[in-house]
């Protein structure tokens, strides 16, 4: 038998690899379904969506403005820094640094800054700006590499005009499109920051949901969906400048904490407690650290990986099933409905998805897997639909199912694989915040440490998650090189 080493063969191999890994982890993961009787609660949620109500929420306008402004300022800072870091991203130091800052979830960044600046706008903006800088730097550098101009001419010339005229300007359309897409993610991040107390939409959403006030929860969610769906009408570069000025005037910027508390946080709170004892006791230190490794770090990493890999497989399946629904070429006018569905799926915070799924199938790792898969699957589905609709089609193309199966699906499969690799990083990062289901991911232990004010433990665990993310990132980078995926635009 002759094996021909085609690109398609590589894609088959890698798909098989992801699928078998996913199936193995699904078999190992705790995915028991238990019988519940959720009808009352589900009916209450449904009733909420039938008669959504925003009148009971105090300070709604404030929450809306704060959400938008956090996103605008955070994303603007991140995009600006990202543009400047992008040409340097080929340096290992810079690319590791970027991987590090984006591997920490924005909620964890916020929890750290909360200890340093209190519930100030600085906390919200930095929590968005820092991880997104890492994301922008990487993706902009990917985009620049595909500049229609030969990259070798400018890679070693760091002067500003070379960078501007050979890099940024030819790629401007791609950069702008990506930044716009990321702004949507930034809005979502800003909303979620409310879960830990910043005055954004998530603040009220979390309250309404946990108190079972589903009319208000539905009202807030619908409002948020509407914001995302109408983004293209209220977000463009000129308006962003206006929003920026408004945000700087409107938001309260002063740190709420005295400087001495910031110093205490850095010099005492985050230092492992055994190191602060008057005399250094090595056996005490090693026992403290050993307990942490065996009790939290190792089980946490295990659960996080199981959860993320199984979620990745489900996410891929969902993306492949949903993208045709939002593709104009395949569905025709009905694509608007598909878009709506994907907006709902990707804009509902995973924690809420997981909560509703748990009501139906009981607590285990499965609600977390499904929540991550639905959310990320919808994002990939949306990006794929977008890509499919820009594929040039012949006049005598097939229609409907044939168009999907023989024309578009094969053409966008490389984008799909590329997106899956990138999303794995995101899923791993997000798996951390689903610890509340009793799924003991590493994020569960981070949350417990913050809740008990053990900041030293929290910091070590956060660094461990970052290291894990960076490891996964470098593995996925190698696989992408193997597939020559670097030449395919990532998003």
């Amino acid at each position: 038998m002759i094996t021909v080493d085609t690109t398609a063969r590589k894609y088959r191999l890698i798909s098989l690899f992801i699928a078998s890994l996913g199936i193995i982890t699904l078999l190992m993961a705790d995915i028991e379904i238990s019988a519940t009787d959720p009808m009352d609660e589900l009916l209450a949620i449904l009733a909420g969506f039938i008669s959504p109500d925003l009148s009971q929420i105090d300070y709604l306008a404030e929450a809306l403005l704060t959400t938008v402004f956090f996103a605008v300022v955070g994303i603007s800072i991140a995009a600006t820094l990202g543009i400047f870091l992008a040409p340097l991203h080929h340096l290992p130091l810079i690319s590791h640094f970027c991987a590090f800052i984006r591997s920490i979830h924005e909620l964890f960044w916020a929890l750290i800054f909360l200890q340093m600046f209190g519930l100030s706008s600085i906390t919200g903006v930095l929590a968005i700006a820092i991880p997104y800088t890492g994301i922008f730097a990487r993706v902009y550098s990917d985009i620049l590499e595909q500049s229609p101009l030969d990259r070798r001419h400018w890679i070693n010339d760091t002067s500003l005009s070379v960078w501007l005229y050979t890099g940024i300007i030819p790629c401007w359309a791609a950069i702008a499109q990506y930044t716009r897409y990321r702004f949507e993610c930034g809005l979502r991040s800003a909303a979620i920051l409310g879960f830990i107390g910043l005055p954004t939409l998530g603040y009220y959403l979390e309250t309404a949901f946990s108190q079972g006030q589903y009319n208000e929860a539905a009202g807030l969610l619908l409002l948020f969906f509407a914001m995302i769906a109408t983004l293209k009408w209220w977000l463009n570069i000129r308006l962003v400048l206006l929003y920026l000025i408004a945000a700087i005037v409107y938001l309260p910027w002063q740190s709420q904490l005295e400087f001495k508390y910031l110093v205490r946080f850095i010099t005492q709170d985050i230092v492992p407690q055994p190191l602060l004892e008057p005399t250094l006791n090595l056996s005490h230190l090693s026992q403290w650290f050993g307990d942490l490794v065996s009790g939290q770090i190792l089980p946490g990493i295990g659960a996080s990986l199981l959860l993320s890999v199984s979620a990745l497989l489900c996410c891929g399946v969902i993306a492949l099933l949903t993208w045709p629904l939002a593709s104009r070429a395949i569905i025709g006018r009905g694509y608007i409905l598909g878009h709506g569905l994907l907006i709902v799926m990707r804009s509902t915070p995973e924690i809420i998805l997981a909560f509703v799924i748990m009501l139906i199938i009981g607590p285990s790792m499965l609600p977390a897997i499904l929540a991550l898969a639905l959310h990320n699957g919808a994002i990939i589905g949306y990006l794929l639909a977008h890509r499919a609709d820009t594929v040039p089609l012949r006049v005598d193309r097939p229609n409907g199912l044939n168009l999907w199966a023989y024309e578009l699906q094969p053409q966008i499969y490389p984008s799909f694989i590329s997106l899956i690799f990138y999303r794995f990083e995101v899923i791993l990062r997000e798996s951390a915040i689903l610890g509340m289901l009793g799924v003991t991911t590493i994020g569960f232990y981070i949350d417990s440490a913050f809740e008990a004010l053990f900041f030293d433990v929290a910091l070590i665990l956060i660094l461990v998650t970052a290291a894990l993310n960076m490891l996964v990132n470098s593995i996925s980078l190698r696989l992408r090189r193997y597939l020559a995926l670097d030449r395919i635009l990532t998003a």
Partner: protein
Amino acid sequence: MKYLLLCCLLFVSSINAQTFTFTAIPDEDESRLRSRFDKVALYLTEQLGVDVKYVPVKSYSAAISAFRNNQVQLAWFGGLSGVKARYLVEGSRAIAQGSEDQFFKTYFIAHHSTGLTEQAQLNKDIAKFTFTFGSKGSTSGRLMPEHFIRQTFGKSPNKVFKRVGFSGDHSRTIAQVQSGAWQIGAVNYKVWHNELNAGKIDLSKIKVIWTTPTYPDYQWTIRGDVDQQFSPDFSQRVQKALLDMSEPSLLASFPRQKFVPATNDDYEPIKVIAKAIKLL
């Protein structure tokens, strides 16, 4: 010269306008928290003669951090969060508790499918089922139930039950046990009665199977340095204002019938248990 004067005036007024701030752990009904507690702030402003403001927080740990960082000088804490806050802030004192807080208790609740019935002792059969606490930092939803579980079974909850979770708060514990997502849960008894009165509980689906022994819970804790910051007898005046609070609409925010004096020593049992479970 005029500007200099203006600056001086602004400076002086900013000193005089020192605000006394307080917070409350987000434990009872969280909705409209701000409008409800703004009323309490208004009452305290009248009683104390200084500007009093309420700062909302989203979690137990945020309340403790705010207290520790002097963002708030007074806080309505749970048993565990209060012990923790006083441990972190030297000189801080418990000054008042609700009259109910001297004899607080936790209900263990079960879904009807478990077939469990109410008993005087903690039924060892509960080990067969799934179990949810409330918030990780809660006294009635976590610390005390965990303590009694350890006492009964001699091991930690995640070794006792089939599965252990943290629902996040008391209302969610009730909703999730009622829907059968979790089979057993531990819940603050006052929240249970509130929801029962509000018609949110269907007794054919969910019931109380055990009531814990009583323990001290919620209290007002004040920072030790307020007497220097405000006036020499400031903490006493705050205590008096709290104890004198009689308006039912104000007390309903907590919800307590009235406040009685409290001391740090009242919470010694909580401190001992928190240390044993390594939450302190």
